[in-house]
């Protein structure tokens, strides 16, 4: 006959017994695991440098990225994109300057016309003589030092490797979208085939083999560079340390690690 007292006592004993073997396993964070597999991972911190002065908006990087990382070519999402900014003197609006920006299809096919799509079927065509300045700004994941996306992922499917790159575990992501909402740069989206969160990972499969990212290789003008910030002799590191570089939206405290040469205040 099992009395209530006995039942409770046995349950407690059983629970204690069960928790013993559980304590024998050590729970490894991805960081720790990495540290064990690659002996000294702390020698690398990948950083990116974009020289906006060199970018001509051809979109070859976007094309290369889509193919390399198997983001369906016609899907309206992309891991990297190029924005065009046109600052005009617009008399109609009676303001001295007016900023227009766009990135049709992420600039996959480059910028082939001067037209700007304003949405709702409205097209604006700035007159050449009205344009004060115009430039292109490539964008990608900033592999932030304090990544908002990693903080908000409820299951740890988004995590940061020791070399600074933020990765997504496609087998573990539940697709809640919290990271998509949490990233201030809008670099995240849902992969149309895998139905999990996706974003630029600096072509992790390539850089780990010592190669450059697909976009860096694709850019004919050298507007994109990847480097290792932990190496003081790295060309990119030297530029970041000696030239005037900027980062995007630093007010969010994410400490982005994609640096820009020639950033302008109009850039969003």
């Amino acid at each position, binding site marked *: 006959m099992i009395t209530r007292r006995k039942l409770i006592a046995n349950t407690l004993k059983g629970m204690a017994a069960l928790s013993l073997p559980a304590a024998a396993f050590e729970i490894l964070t991805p960081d720790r695991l990495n540290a064990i597999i690659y002996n000294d991972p702390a020698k690398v911190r990948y950083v990116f440098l974009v020289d906006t002065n060199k970018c001509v908006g051809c979109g070859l990087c976007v094309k290369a990225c889509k193919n390399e990382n198997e983001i369906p070519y*016609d*899907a309206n999402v*992309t891991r990297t994109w190029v924005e065009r900014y046109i600052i005009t003197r617009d008399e109609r609006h009676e303001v001295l300057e007016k900023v227009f920006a766009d990135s049709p299809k992420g600039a996959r096919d480059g910028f082939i016309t001067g037209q700007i799509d304003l949405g709702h079927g409205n097209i604006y065509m700035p007159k050449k003589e009205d344009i004060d300045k115009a430039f292109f700004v490539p964008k990608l994941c900033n592999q932030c030092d304090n990544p*908002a996306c990693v*903080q*908000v992922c409820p299951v740890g499917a988004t995590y940061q490797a020791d070399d600074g790159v933020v990765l997504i575990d496609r087998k573990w992501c*539940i697709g809640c979208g919290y990271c998509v*909402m949490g990233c201030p740069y809008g670099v995240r989206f849902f992969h*149309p085939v895998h139905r999990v969160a996706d974003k630029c990972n600096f072509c992790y499969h390539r850089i780990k083999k010592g190669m450059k990212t697909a976009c860096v290789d694709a850019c004919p003008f050298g507007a994109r560079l990847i480097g290792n910030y932990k190496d003081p002799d790295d060309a990119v590191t030297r530029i970041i340390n000696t030239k005037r570089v900027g980062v995007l939206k630093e007010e969010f405290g994410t400490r982005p690690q994609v640096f820009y040469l020639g950033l302008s205040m109009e850039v*969003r």
Partner: protein
Amino acid sequence: MMVHGEAWTIKELFTYPNEYIYWSIQIVMYPFMTGLVAGAFVLSSLYHVFGIKQLKDIARFSLVFSFALLPCAPLPLLLHLQQPLRNMHVMMTPHFTSAIAAFGIVFVTYGAIVAAELWFLYRKHFVETALALKNKADKSAYETVMYHVNNLLTLGAHDISELALHRDERAIKIMAGIGIPVACFLHGYAGFIFGSVKANALWMTPLMPVIFIMSAVVSGIALCMITYIVTMEGRKFLAKRKAAACPGESCAEIESVEVNVIRMTAKYLLGFLVAAISLELLDLIFRGYTAVKSWDMLRRVIYGKDFYNIFVFQYGLGNLVPFILLLIPGLTIRRAVVGTLLVLLGVFMMRWNVVIGGQAFSLTFAGFMHYHLPIIPHDMETFREGLFGALFIIGSPYVLFFILNKIMPVFGMKESH
């Protein structure tokens, strides 16, 4: 190839290429449903903890209703996930820097408290029903099932002596007491999920959890009132039909009880409504006054694009009109019905304006996104995150309530205390 979010988002001006309205109708439903759960519980606790006698009738009702609503609160989250089958990952590898990670734990804790309180409240009933059915000869199939269910639910505690029942009462009081902060936490927590998204200019405010709690209580009370009225009207209708046959409750009796309960409950509804509106206005005024970088954009959304949703539907129809309706003395049932329905609309619109409104502008602060609720579903996604998905969520608690009411009858019970 259609990307998630593309089906219901229309972009305007400059937005980033990957931006869509990723959190759609189900994320509106989620805080709305949790709000109802928490609110219904708080209403029942007003009687059990603070001993507000006039609420005795609605207290039992709202507790059972809160329990029926409970499983429906995480449903919208589940429907919203891109990988719903992986939902258990949240419990398996909770990543506690995320506000969503503790959801399962908070939720289960709360569920356990409500279940425990209900058990103490209905223990006597279970025992009595089980005993009565046990001794009954030739039980029907339904009765046999009911006998086993009730017998099981007693959990072997058959003691219904005066002393034991007294202890039950104390336990109810304690459970209800612990339940209030947990219910508030459950919902304040939903607010925190939004309030802590630093990338979103509209959501990021420490007031968000408090605003959510207040409006939660408002909506919970309103829903309990309206459901209470509907069930009472139903009973009145039945009583009328049976009036000749059995002289049990008469219509007049039910009617007077109903009006009294509703008048009393309406007072509490008004109190919480005032608190909710004050907080929301404080938030709005503060944003306008400090006018940081994002205000330029927020102003265009709040006073421009979303003007009707915010000022007409939420504040006007959803807050001001019911406020006046419920405040005028001599509240009638009909007026209460209109008032509470409008209150529910107001709270729903508030959730809508937070969730959808928060995504109405681009992270560039230079473009907009418009949401078009999918009505006719043409695939699984537009069903799950469309009108019918939302209606499914709204309907499910009533089905549960119907079943629960069979086991734990809400009406016609003699109060032991």
